[in-house]
Structures are given as C-alpha cells and as structure tokens.
C-alpha cells in the first residue's frame, strides 16, 4: 500500500444543511448591526473575540421597558428614551449600539451628531460609531467620551442604598464602583475632575469622588513587580529601553531566561491588517509566566503562546557558558534533536538556518544579550537567554578589556539527553556484532554482556558471561573499543548473544493473526518481535493488538513508552476498543 496512492474516497462527508444560506444571511444582517463583544479571561490574560456571544445576545428575546420621549415610538431611533432591561437586550441608537445586561438602566438623548447617554445602573457593552457618545455613569461618578470604539461599562451598587423601582431600576445614587473596559478605540474617562485616556485592552475603575485608576489583575501586578525588581540593576534598566527579544507572531515560544524577565516584542508578520489583542503592540516587558494572546490577521482570529521560565535552559548554555575561562564551547543540543538553531547577539543573527553541523563563536567583551533560538519542529520554539554584561565573569572581562569567546556548536544529530536511547545502543551493538560473532564462533543461550556507556561514549564496567576464556577475551576487546554516541548521562547496557530471532517473521505472523481476527495471537507474535528487535513500527502494532485484544495491562505498558505524538495517533484504536485514556494513563 503506497502512501501516494491512498484511496480516501470511501470517507464520505454529509452535505451542508439546506438552511445554511438563510442562517448566514440572517446572521450577517443581524450582527452587522451588533457589536463584537470581547470577553476577557483575566486569570491567564487572554483575549478572545466572542462573535458568538454577540450573536447570542442579538438573538436573545427582547425584554425591555422602553419609554420613548421622542416622536418615534419604538425607542430604537427615537431622539430620546429610557430603557430598563430585564433580559439581555440590544438597543440600537443612531450610531450607537448597546447590549444591555439584565438590570441595565439607561436613558439617551440625541443632540446633533452626538448621543448623550446616562447609564444609571447595571452593565452594558457599547459600540460607538457616531462621532461622539457622552456617557454619564451613576450620579456623576464617572463620565465617558467615546467615538469609534467598543467598551463595556459595569456598575457595582452599594446595596444598602438600593431602591427597586418597577422591573429592575436601581437608584443611581447607589453606584459604588464603575468599571470601564475598552476593547477598541480610545476612550476618555473622567472621575473627580481628572481625565485619562483608556487604551484598548485596559480596564479602569472609578469610585465616587476619586480619579480613575487602572485595574490590575494578578498578572499585571506580577509584571509591575518584575519591572520594580529589575529597575534596580542599571544594566537591566538600560536594557528595558528596547525589546531584547523579538518573537514571531503565532509561534509557541518558550523563553528560558536566568533572570526571569525579558523584554519581548512581537514581530507582526501578518501581511496586512494584523491586530494584536494581547499583548498590545507596545506591551513588551514580560515576566515569568504563561501568556496566550490572540490576534486577527486579515480578519481571521488566530492564537499564539508565550511562556517565560526562569532557568538556564536544558542542555544549552549551561555551566560551561558561565564558568569558562577561554573558548569553551557551548553545546546546542536537546531532545528532540533541534531542527534548526540560530544565535543572535543583541538581536543580530550570527548563525542562521542550518541543515549541517555548524559552530559559532560569541565574544562577550561588551554588554550583550545572547539568544539561542531552537526550532523544535512545527511551531514550537525555545529561546535560551544570556545577558553577557550581567554575569560576573563577563563583567571582569569587560573591566580587564579581555575579550571572552564562547563557541556555540550544533551537532548534526544532536546529543542524547539523559542516557542513550535503545535505538542508539542497538545501532552501535549491531556494528560490532559481526566481530563478536567471530570471537565466539557459535551463539548460545546464556552468553551475556553487561557494561556501562559513559557520557563521552566510552565503555567501562564490562562483564562478559562466556564459558570459553579465549572467546571472552576476544569479545571483551571488541566491546571495550566500541564507541557509542555521546550522551548526557551514563547508560547501563545488557546485551544477549543468544541465537538471533527473526523479528520480521514474527511481525508477519502477528499480521496473519490480525487478519484472522485472532488478536491475542497477534499480540503474542508482535511482542516477541518487539523483544527480538526494538522497532517503533513493531511497538505500534503491539499496542494496537493489545487494544484490540482488550488487554489493558499490556496496552498500558507499551503506551507509557510512546512519545506524545505516537500516543495521539494511536489513542483512537484503544478508544474504539473501549479502553479509555484514563486506563492507559493509570
């Protein structure tokens, strides 16, 4: 079966519902008049466009008490009127659309090109397209001037002063707190005689008799704390005048920074019309934490992720970087093997995309911000950060005018992180096996090797279990001179010289059993094949057969050695055999 000739036509999709056009046109006609409400997720500081919410609000049943004062009775285009919403309600004025929450009590008056609104209580989201909307909230607690903007105004009442009138009205004198959230456009907010311009993405609060203050959620406070902490260090303070790191829009970025704060800007690569919802384009300081942001690119909602962690990074720019005396090299390695690596100093790339091994020298005689970018595949990116001038050794080097150099090197195949993988050991053993077979003349059960592979790839602690002393010495000599790949940690190896098994034949037997529907027999053959020769394909088949046989324990054992991608690909097989992910994860 050839990948290029898969016939996928048997998977038939249902037709679109016949009412689709009607539904689309109804929605376009409705929501064009409505607003795009954005909903803020404060805990993780995410912004999402919630068009569906706008649609839902627009579709909600009308339940509003409208008392028009003008000539037109429906309240929507009247020159003035009053509304008290008892259910979610959309109110269309000239150039202004409001989505009123239940309990919102508003009145309005058209005056030339401007609309004057009084929001006595409750919450409402306002989309302002008129030249100006003047909005008074509460009894002169706050006043707002808005044009070409979308904002949400919420009031919190002092319950001791609450008066219920008719359906839901509450006296305006009871407003204790006004919260203004601006989604689009700039809005002027005044309170106690002071005016601030509220930028998109910001939230301000006003209490009676006090000037507006910016509302900070937990993340905001953390960021401010980071700025306070770093501002004491003149080097870092100087560095905050411009972005230290520019990341690309939409990537899943992890930044490993020993100092835990890095000034990040996002490069808007969208061809045109990119609107970043969070962080705003001028929000660049980022402390430790997880950040998700969304943006629109050519009208399409998209998302990106940014995670900043305070560490030196794994396997990259670690101890040798700081403790070196001269031209020590820094290994760029990791797991999985990086697809690409790039080094920048003060934002200037010194090594770019690569498909071959390369190395680069970094000289830190001046204050330098070094970032090593590792592309881990798909959109995953890691940045490893070093600020040259903030490390003691580098400060000394600067003082003594001694240039310090570091070498960054990427190996073609990377370096094994932790001990060697089974595959890496197997590859080396396969290469020396012919020589070992020559030594022992004939394989037999019980012939065993046990040894350690040191991180530099050398062998020690060798134990050879072979009856014949000459053969043993011969095998010992072969193994001792074997060279394994370098790894981060020591690897313990046990290797049997017993008669070979035929992994392929066992796989074929397993497939035959699968074809007969004899899943337990297939599992047995596949497991034997896997034991004979470790192979990812055999692992997949073994797992599938275990699922098909309903053998949860065996499926779980193989599940745990799979990487995440493989688990994702194969999970469905177990699910279809009524084995759940929870059972596999136990």
């Amino acid at each position, binding site marked *: *079966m050839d990948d290029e000739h*898969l016939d*996928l036509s*048997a998977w*038939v999709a249902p037709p679109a*519902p016949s009412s689709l*056009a009607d*539904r689309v046109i109804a929605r376009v006609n409705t929501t064009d008049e409505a607003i795009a409400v954005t909903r803020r997720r404060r805990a993780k500081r995410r912004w999402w466009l919630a068009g569906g919410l706008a649609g839902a609000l627009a579709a909600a049943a009308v339940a509003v008490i409208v008392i028009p004062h003008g000539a037109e009775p429906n309240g929507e285009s009247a020159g003035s009127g009053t509304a008290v919403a008892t259910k979610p309600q959309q109110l269309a004025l000239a150039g202004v659309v409001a989505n009123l929450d239940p309990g919102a009590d508003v009145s309005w008056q058209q005056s030339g090109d401007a609309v004057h609104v009084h929001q006595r209580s409750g919450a409402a989201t306002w989309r302002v397209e008129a030249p100006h909307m003047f909005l008074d909230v509460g009894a002169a607690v706050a006043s707002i001037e808005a044009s070409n903007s979308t904002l949400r105004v919420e009031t919190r009442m002092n319950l001791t002063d609450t008066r219920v009138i008719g359906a839901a009205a509450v006296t305006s004198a009871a407003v204790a707190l006004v919260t203004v959230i601006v989604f689009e456009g700039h809005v002027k907010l005044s309170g106690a005689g002071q005016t601030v311009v509220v930028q998109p993405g910001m939230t301000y609060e006003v209490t009676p008799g006090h000037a507006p203050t910016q509302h900070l959620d937990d993340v905001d406070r953390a960021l401010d704390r980071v700025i306070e902490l770093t501002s004491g260090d003149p080097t870092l303070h100087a560095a905050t005048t411009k972005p230290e790191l520019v990341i690309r829009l939409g990537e899943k970025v992890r930044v490993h920074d020993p100092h835990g704060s890095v000034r990040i800007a996002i490069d808007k690569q969208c061809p045109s019309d990119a609107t970043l919802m969070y962080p705003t384009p001028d929000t660049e300081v980022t402390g430790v934490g997880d950040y998700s942001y969304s943006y629109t690119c050519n009208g399409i909602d*998209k998302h990106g992720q940014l995670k900043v962690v305070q560490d030196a990074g794994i396997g990259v720019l670690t101890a040798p970087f700081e403790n070196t005396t001269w031209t020590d090299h820094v290994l760029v390695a990791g797991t999985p093997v990086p697809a690409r690596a790039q080094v920048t100093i003060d934002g200037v790339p010194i090594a770019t995309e690569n498909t071959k091994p390369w190395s680069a020298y970094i000289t830190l005689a001046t204050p330098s911000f070094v970032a090593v970018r590792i592309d881990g595949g798909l959109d995953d990116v890691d940045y490893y950060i070093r600020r040259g001038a903030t490390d003691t050794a580098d400060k000394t080097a600067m003082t003594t005018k001694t240039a310090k150099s570091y070498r960054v090197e990427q190996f073609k195949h990377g370096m094994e992180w932790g001990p060697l993988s089974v595959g890496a050991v197997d590859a080396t053993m396969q290469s020396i096996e012919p020589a070992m077979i020559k030594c022992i003349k004939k394989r037999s059960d019980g012939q065993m090797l046990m040894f350690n592979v040191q991180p530099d790839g050398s062998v020690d602690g060798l134990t050879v279990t072979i009856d014949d002393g000459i053969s043993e010495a011969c095998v010992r000599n072969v193994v001792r001179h074997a060279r394994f790949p370098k790894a981060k940690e020591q690897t313990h190896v046990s290797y049997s010289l017993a008669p070979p098994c035929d992994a392929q034949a066992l796989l074929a037997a397993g497939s035959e059993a699968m074809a007969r529907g004899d899943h337990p027999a297939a599992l047995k053959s596949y497991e034997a094949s896997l034991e004979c020769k470790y192979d990812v394909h055999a692992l997949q088949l073994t797992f599938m057969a275990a699922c098909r046989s309903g053998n949860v324990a065996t499926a779980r054992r193989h599940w745990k050695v799979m990487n995440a991608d493989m688990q994702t690909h194969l999970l469905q097989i177990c699910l279809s055999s009524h084995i759940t992910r929870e059972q596999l994860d136990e």
Partner: protein
Amino acid sequence: MHALAATPVATELDELTLRRAQRGDEGAWRALIAVYQDRVHALVWRLLAGRAQHRAPDLAQETFVRVVRALPRFEPLGSAKLSTWILTIATRVALNELRRPNADELAAEPIAHAESADQSVERKRLGTAIAAGMAALDAEQRAVIVLREYHELDYAEIATALELELGTVKSRLSRARAALRDYLVTALPELGDRHG
C-alpha cells in the same frame, strides 16, 4: 493519489455574481453559498473528525459570515481563487475551534462517517477506518491531508492556508499519509495484503 473533489455544480462562482456579492447583493450571497457550501461543510466536518463534528454546520455558518463580511476585500484578479480563499477561511475557523481554550473539554465523539446507500460493505468499512485514522491524526496533519486529498489544493495553496513553509507542508503531508497508511493497514490488514 486519487482525486476526490466532487463538485457537481459550478466549481467557481462566475465573475458577475461575485461582483454583485462584493457590492452586498443578498441574492448573490445566496448564489455564492450555494456553490461553496458543501465543500466548506465537508472540510470543517472532516477537520473536526472525532472531536465535535456536530459543530460542523455552525462552523460552516461562521465561515460564510466571515466570507460575506470580508468579500469586499477579496481581489478577484489576485493570486488566490475564490474557492481557495473560502476554504482557507473555513480551515482557520475549524482550527480555531480545535485550539479554543476549552477544546480539550470537547468530548471525543464516535467516529462519524456519512454512509451512502450505494456503498458496498467493504467500502463502508474502509470509510469508517479512514474516519478513525483521520481522527487519530493531530489537527495540523489532518488539515494538510484533507486540503490536499479532498479539496485538491496544491502545496503552495496549503502553505498559504495554514501559514506554513512549503517544506513543512510537504513533510507534514508525508507524515500524515504514512500515519494514515499505518493505521489503515493495521485496522484493515487485507489492505496491506492487497496492495503489497
């Protein structure tokens, strides 16, 4: 690879109707939706395989709402065909749905396969297996293979739709095909026997 696009009506909207649609003519919008609705619905339905396929009509609706709104900005003489542009929007709407913060909360659904009456038992089995195999792919791989195999987008169009580099599209497609083949051979061993 077999060509799978099945579009019994006009494959592209005529230029005059497109111009009318761009000017906000509701009748032209209906004509546009009629031409592309099955393709858009099929695309989002397949992209949601095993996740939330009941949402496909909603997402098709969302796609066309965005299409209608953005239509005045579409450049008929530009590099993208209208169908490719619409499918790009549909793809992003579906992927956005899968990436939503609460996407993990979407319960895995039984694998859906719209059987047609004239399908043989064997083809129904194959259809179900393909659906399961597609559901087992990650969303990005599934998007590449669905756009390629069911909608005949070329590599460059897929790269544009998914904002990927050309090489990434090719490698992702290759991996998706291999994973799907492995799944099918395992799920339906007779396929492997028949095709060698």
